[in-house]
């Protein structure tokens, strides 16, 4: 009897172990299953949204793959003025520099599942610049005596779009705030109209082309939208081919007209999961403080999360949509800020368009293309709204050129972005921090 009992127990044990083994192995090898079970520790902000897909960063048996970094980040690094492009280190002349620190590999500085010293999973020691720039003071006397653990206050490792000497020199002694400062105006319709294959005449409700079975209660919202105003009918958004009708079109339906917008959205933290073919992000997955309540927590981050379907009201999308979810100190302080006051004045017509400052004005910056033409040209410059809202956040000096300096001088902007308390109170006071960058440039020129 005892032997039978032991055998049965052993058999049950083997079955449990086999089932567990089978579950673990299938979870590990199946591409689309959630693998968070195997996480050794927390992932960094942003990556936490895709942490269930280990294979984006790892080979099947755990080894890190650098190509995983490049698959997502190479494009934006290439577009930025990356001061430490990998190709620089492939020159035999520079190979020796890699002996102390392999700057040709992302993984030398960025490590996951570890406590970081800087944002973006950067775990390298704070004085890492010393390996290659030990003699910087020989060329730059202004740097004499400076400690190497503070270089990143004035320099970024990758993107120095607004932090190079000629640019700083060009913007010395600027006023804190420009009286005429404003954001460039969006002009999507101008460029869309050039390639549109349909009439751009405004539509009326009777012009709609939705199938008879469709509930038209949202028709009024559409009628008041810029879509109806520009001749965009129901089928243009709800259908990709003849006879097709989708009640709730996803981002791929918007993409046919708003390709660049979607590219930006998918590259940012709102769209990163969709870009990796995972379910859309929900607000509850955010690490930043969000408003409590079912409405916000369950919100799915697709285009209509911010641009309410049919209305597509950009004013609403610029402030209300953000504050319906975001509840961190900076967001909560916005409505007490000077920026918000200006935004309200603009909406009430007291200020001209672009003079107000919304959430979107800073976090979805307007990018002007083709502005450096030598001859005065009558050609309208294309203004795109960058929908990768994470693009200019870290390091925040990436905001200087495209955002702050539309209205503020460089010195004031630099000091403001360096003042963490000021960021928390949404720039409701004057900067208390002062960077000596501009003084150093003055000394040199």
């Amino acid at each position: 009897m005892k032997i039978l009992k032991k055998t049965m127990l052993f058999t049950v044990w083997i079955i449990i172990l086999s089932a567990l083994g089978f579950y673990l192995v299938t979870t590990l090898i199946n591409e689309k299953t959630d693998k968070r079970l195997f996480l050794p520790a927390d992932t960094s902000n942003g990556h936490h949204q895709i942490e269930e897909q280990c294979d984006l960063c790892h080979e099947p048996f755990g080894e890190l793959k650098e190509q995983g970094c490049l698959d997502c980040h190479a494009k934006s690094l290439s577009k930025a003025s990356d001061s430490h492009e990998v190709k620089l280190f492939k020159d035999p002349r520079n190979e020796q520099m890699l002996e102390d620190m392999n700057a040709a590999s992302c993984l030398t500085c960025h490590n996951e599942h570890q406590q970081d010293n800087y944002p973006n999973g950067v775990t390298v020691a704070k004085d890492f610049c010393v390996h290659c720039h030990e003699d910087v003071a020989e060329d730059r006397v202004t740097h004499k005596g400076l400690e190497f653990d503070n270089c990143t206050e004035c320099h970024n490792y990758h993107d120095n779009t607004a932090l190079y000497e000629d640019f700083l020199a060009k913007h010395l002694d600027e006023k804190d705030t420009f009286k005429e400062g404003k954001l460039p105006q969006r002009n999507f319709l101008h460029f869309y109209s050039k390639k549109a294959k349909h009439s751009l005449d405004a539509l009326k409700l009777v012009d709609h082309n939705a199938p008879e079975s469709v509930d038209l209660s949202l028709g009024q919202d559409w009628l008041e939208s810029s879509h109806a105003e520009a001749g965009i009918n129901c089928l243009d958004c709800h259908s990709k081919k003849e006879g097709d009708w989708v009640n709730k079109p996803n981002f791929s339906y918007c993409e046919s007209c708003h390709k660049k917008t979607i590219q930006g959205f998918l590259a940012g933290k709102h769209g990163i999961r969709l870009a990796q073919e995972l379910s859309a992000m929900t607000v509850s997955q955010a690490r930043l403080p969000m408003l409590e309540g079912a409405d916000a927590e369950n919100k799915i981050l697709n285009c209509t999360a911010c641009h309410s379907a049919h209305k597509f009201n950009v004013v609403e999308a610029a402030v209300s949509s953000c504050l319906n979810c975001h509840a961190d100190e900076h967001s909560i302080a916005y409505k007490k800020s000077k920026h918000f006051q200006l935004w309200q004045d603009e909406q009430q017509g007291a200020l001209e368009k672009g003079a107000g400052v919304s959430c979107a004005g800073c976090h979805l910056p307007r990018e002007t293309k083709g502005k450096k033409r030598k001859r005065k040209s009558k050609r309208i410059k294309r203004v795109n709204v960058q929908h990768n809202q994470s693009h200019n956040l870290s390091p925040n000096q990436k905001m200087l050129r495209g955002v702050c300096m539309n209205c503020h001088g460089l010195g004031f902007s630099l000091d403001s972005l360096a003042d963490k308390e000021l960021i928390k109170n949404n720039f409701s006071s004057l900067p208390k921090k002062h960077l000596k960058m501009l003084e150093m440039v003055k000394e040199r020129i």
Partner: protein
Amino acid sequence: MKNIIKILSVGFLLGSALNVSAEGIEPKKVADMIHDALEANRIVYAEKIVNRLMNEEEVIDANEHWKQEQALLLPAQFFREGADIVREKSRSGVSYSLLSLWPVNAKNNAKSDVEKAGLKFISDNPGKNFYGDEVVAGKRYFTAIYPDIASSGACVTCHNNHKDSPKKDFKLNQIMGGMLIRIPTE
């Protein structure tokens, strides 16, 4: 048998005439050929793109900070970008760069002994190229350095006025530096 000897003899003579050794074309010849192609591309970019669009047609500027300023690359930067791609994509291990004894950017100064000797040689012997062998980062290379001449007023003005240029009195047609081509030989 006689035919075989004849064929081998003709092959040997042709090979000798074209400097084709058992390992292929000799490194000096390869370096000269690469230099010819690079030099031609530099001239086309400087004259047909930069000079035409910036100075003649006044369409767009060329700027050291071309990415940030939405401008054309300076000719030297165009050259370096090409060199970067070759280093990244080429499996041959060949690399090339622009060096100078008076560089605007200190990292473009001569580093190895061969680089130093080469830049000095082409500077002291106008019109002549320098060829040498060296070991860099544990690998053996054939290194060729060709004179880089100030071919237009724009080169001279830019270098003489640049705050980081250690030499402010360049003149037209003077040697400003050297084009280095490095070919792995092992």
